[in-house]
C-alpha cells in the first residue's frame, strides 16, 4: 500500500462515520498526541503497513477509508498492549476492533485470510454452540485455497486427544442460533 497520503479536508460523511466509530470503540482519537508508544510496543507492528500510531493519525485526519483499508487492522492480534500503555488513555485495541467490524460491514476486507478464519470459527459456534476445531481448520483451508495447511498436525492432534472429527454440541443449540439470528437482524453480520 502507498505510504504517502494526500491531505484533503475530511468530508462531512467521513466525520460522521468517525464519530460513530469512536462511539462504538468508546474512545476519542483526538486525545492521541502521536507519541508512538503504541507502535513501539506492538508485537505485530513489524508486519503492518500502518503501525497503530499511523492508523490513529489517519483517523485524526478524517481519512477513515484509508484506515479501513489498512492491512494493519487484520494483523492486529488484539493483545491490548497499546491500550494498556497509551499515556493518553486512547483505547487503540478497541478502535482496531471497531475498524475491523466496519470494514466487514462495508466489504473492505484487505486481509481475507483473517476474516475467513473468523467466519469459519463463528459458523461452528452458530451450529453447535461450541468451537468445532476440526471443522474450523478444514473450512478455513478450503476457503483460503490452502487445503494442506497444517495438515501435518491433524493426526498427531487426534492421537493426543486434542481434536475430534465430530463436533461437541450443546443441548440448547437453538438458543445460541437464535442469538446469532437476532444479532444479524439488528444489523450485524
Amino acid at each position, binding site marked *: 500500500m502507498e505510504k504517502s497520503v494526500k491531505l484533503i479536508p475530511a468530508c462531512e460523511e467521513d466525520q460522521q462515520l468517525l464519530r460513530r466509530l469512536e462511539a462504538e470503540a468508546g474512545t476519542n482519537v483526538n486525545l492521541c498526541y502521536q507519541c508512538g508508544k503504541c507502535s513501539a510496543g506492538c*508485537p*505485530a507492528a*513489524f*508486519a503492518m503497513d500502518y503501525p497503530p500510531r499511523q492508523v490513529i493519525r489517519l483517523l485524526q485526519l478524517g481519512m477513515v477509508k484509508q484506515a479501513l483499508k489498512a492491512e494493519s487492522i*487484520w*494483523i492486529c*492480534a*488484539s*493483545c*491490548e*498492549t497499546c*491500550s*494498556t500503555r497509551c499515556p493518553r488513555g486512547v*483505547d487503540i*485495541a478497541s478502535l482496531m*476492533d*471497531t475498524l*475491523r*467490524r466496519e470494514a*466487514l460491514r462495508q466489504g473492505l476486507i484487505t*486481509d481475507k*485470510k*483473517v476474516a*475467513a*478464519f*473468523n*467466519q469459519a*470459527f*463463528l459458523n*461452528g*459456534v452458530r451450529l453447535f*454452540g*461450541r*468451537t468445532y*476445531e476440526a471443522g474450523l*481448520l478444514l473450512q*478455513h483451508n478450503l476457503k483460503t485455497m490452502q487445503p494442506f495447511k*497444517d495438515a501435518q*498436525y491433524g493426526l*498427531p*492432534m487426534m492421537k*493426543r*486427544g*486434542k*481434536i*475430534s472429527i465430530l463436533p*461437541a454440541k*450443546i*443441548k*440448547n443449540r437453538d*438458543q*445460541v442460533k*437464535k*442469538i*446469532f439470528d*437476532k*444479532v444479524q437482524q*439488528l444489523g*450485524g*453480520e
Partner: protein
Amino acid sequence: MKLAYYPGCSLEGSGIEYGMSTERTADILGIELVELDDWNCCGATSGHNTNKLLSLALPARNLAIAEQMGLPMLAPCAACYNRHRNTEHVIKNDPEMRETIAQLIEMELQGTAETVSILEVLANQVGIEQIASKVTRPLLGMKAVCYYGCLLVRPVEHTGFDDPEDPQTMDRIVRALGAETLDWSHKTECCGASLVTSRPEVGNRMLYQILRNAKEAGAECIVTACPLCGMNLDMRQGQVEKEFNTKFDLPVYYVTELVAWAAGESRQAVGIDRHFVEAGRYLDEVAVRAEKIKAEKEAQAQAKAKAAAQAKKAGDQADEDPEARQKKIDAMVKAFEKNPDKMVKRLIEDEERAAILLEVIREDSKKTARLAELMVDDAEKASKAAEAYVTAELKKRAK
C-alpha cells in the same frame, strides 16, 4: 471452596491437558468445581472481531447461568476469562446495554456473576502456603519462565488481579512448587494467537521472539495458563525451529500440570504425555536434580548442625573457663602464700632479683594476685611483669 466451572472449548480439545490438570489441581487443593450446565463458546477473538453485540451476548448466556448458580465462575482459559470479564464489565456499567443483551439471550441478567482466573484462585484464594503444603515431588532445580501472554493481565480494568507489565501470581505459584522462575522480557508479549493459523508468517515470528527470549534468559521450560499460548508454543515450536533454523527444545507446561505433578499425580492423569515437545524427560531430569539438591541441602544442614553443636560445646567450655580460671588463680595465690621462694624463682631466674621480688610481693597482696593471674593466663607475661616490679623497686630504692 466451591466454584462454578467454565472449561471452555479448548480445555476439552487442543488444550485437553490443561483441562485434565485443572480438575486434578482442584481436587488436590479441595476446590469443588461445578460445571456450568450447557455452557456455550465465548466467541473468542473471532466474535469481537466480527460483531460487538455477538461478542457480548455469547459470554452473557454463560454469565446468566452462573448467576443462577450463585457461584464465582472459574474460567482457566485466558481468552474465555477475558471475554467473560469484558462482558461483566459492560453489564455492570452500562444498564442500557445490559437490557439489550438480556433481550438477545432471553435470560435474566442481573450482573452479579464474577469470573475468576485460575491464577488468582491459586495464588490469592487458595494461597501459596496451601499449595506448597501439597508438594510431595518438589521441582527443585527447575529453571522456568512464566508466560502470562495478553489476556490474563490486559486490559487491566477488566482483569486487574495482577500487574499488566510484570505480573507475579504465576511466578509465586511455580516457586511454591520448588522451581526457580527467571526474569525475562516477554512475559506478557503476544504469542500471535490465531495469526499463526491465518497469517503464519506473522504469527511464527511472534512465537520465535518469545521462544528465543526464554532461551536467552536461561529457561529450560515455559509455564503458561492459556491454552492458545500453550498450543502455539508447544505444537508449533518445531515449525518455528525449522523456519528460523534454530533449536529450542523448550517443554511448555500449563501451571496446573506442574501443581498436580508436584503434588504426586501421574503423567497420564495430568496429560504430560500429550505434549508435542517431549515434556516428561525434563520432569524426570528435574526429579534427579531435586534428589541431588535435597541430598546436598541435607548434607549442608547436617554440617551446619554439627558446626552448631561444636560451637555450642566450645561455648560451654568458654562458659566454664571463668570459673576454672578463677580456681587456678586461687590455687596460684595459695602457692605464693605457702612457698613464696619457689614461686618467685619460677618467675625470675636471677637469685638477687628474685629475692627483691619476694620482698615486693610480701608487702603487696595486689601484686601477688596480679602475678598469680598472669601465671595462669600467660607465663611469659607473668615473668615480664615480675621483672618490671623488681626494676621499679630498684629505682625506688636508688632514689
